[in-house]
């Protein structure tokens, strides 16, 4: 049973465009929502994270938008670059240290075309 649904499964964006990846979670107790970036042969690397007390968080070209009532959050990559081509995972967790650690979405394979 998947508690975090991620879409799309794959995404192709032109260089300079905006990449948007969406996630929906089911467990209303989740209160920490990170995004991870994974390159082939490497481990997931924490990109940006948000807590439900804010609706948006921006770090450089990366922005998380969070909608608590809809139980959805999304990653926006502005001015997408070929170096952003990777697999992106959204995740959810109980920051108080719940029993399940990080619950991941199934990932989005992002390709930025030059």
């Amino acid at each position, binding site marked *: 049973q998947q508690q975090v649904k991620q879409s799309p499964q794959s995404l192709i964006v032109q260089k300079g465009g905006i990449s948007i990846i969406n996630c929906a979670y089911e467990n209303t107790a989740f209160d*920490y929502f*990170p995004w*991870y970036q*994974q390159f082939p*042969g*490497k*481990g*997931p*690397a*924490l990109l940006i*994270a948000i807590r439900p007390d804010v609706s948006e968080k921006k770090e450089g070209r990366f922005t998380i938008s969070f909608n608590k009532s809809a139980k959805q959050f999304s990653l926006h990559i502005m001015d997408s670059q070929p170096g952003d081509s990777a*697999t992106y*995972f959204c995740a959810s*967790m*109980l*920051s*108080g*240290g*719940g*029993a*399940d*650690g*990080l*619950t*991941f979405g*199934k*990932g989005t394979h992002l390709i930025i075309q030059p």
Partner: protein
Amino acid sequence: DTAVSQTPKYLVTQMGNDKSIKCEQNLGHDTMYWYKQDSKKFLKIMFSYNNKELIINETVPNRFSPKSPDKAHLNLHINSLELGDSAVYFCASSPNRGQPQHFGDGTRLSIL
């Protein structure tokens, strides 16, 4: 210096064997984890350790056992390997429970 390091990077072995994967973190974190990434890249938590105590254990076969000799290490032991165990296993650590996790680069386990 690598923050979370795993060895070996690749592990090829036969069904029925017993193997171990080592993990070390030099971040001074109190909590360490093991995740399994399957062929479809789905990541799932297997175990977490906090201050040398097992705090979660998902529905993982008891052939898998984490062992922590000290706070900086969490090794994964797997007995009687099965074909379905083929996957990439990631170690991760965080300052404490419920805090951002940092991952190693994974160990690709292939069962022949």
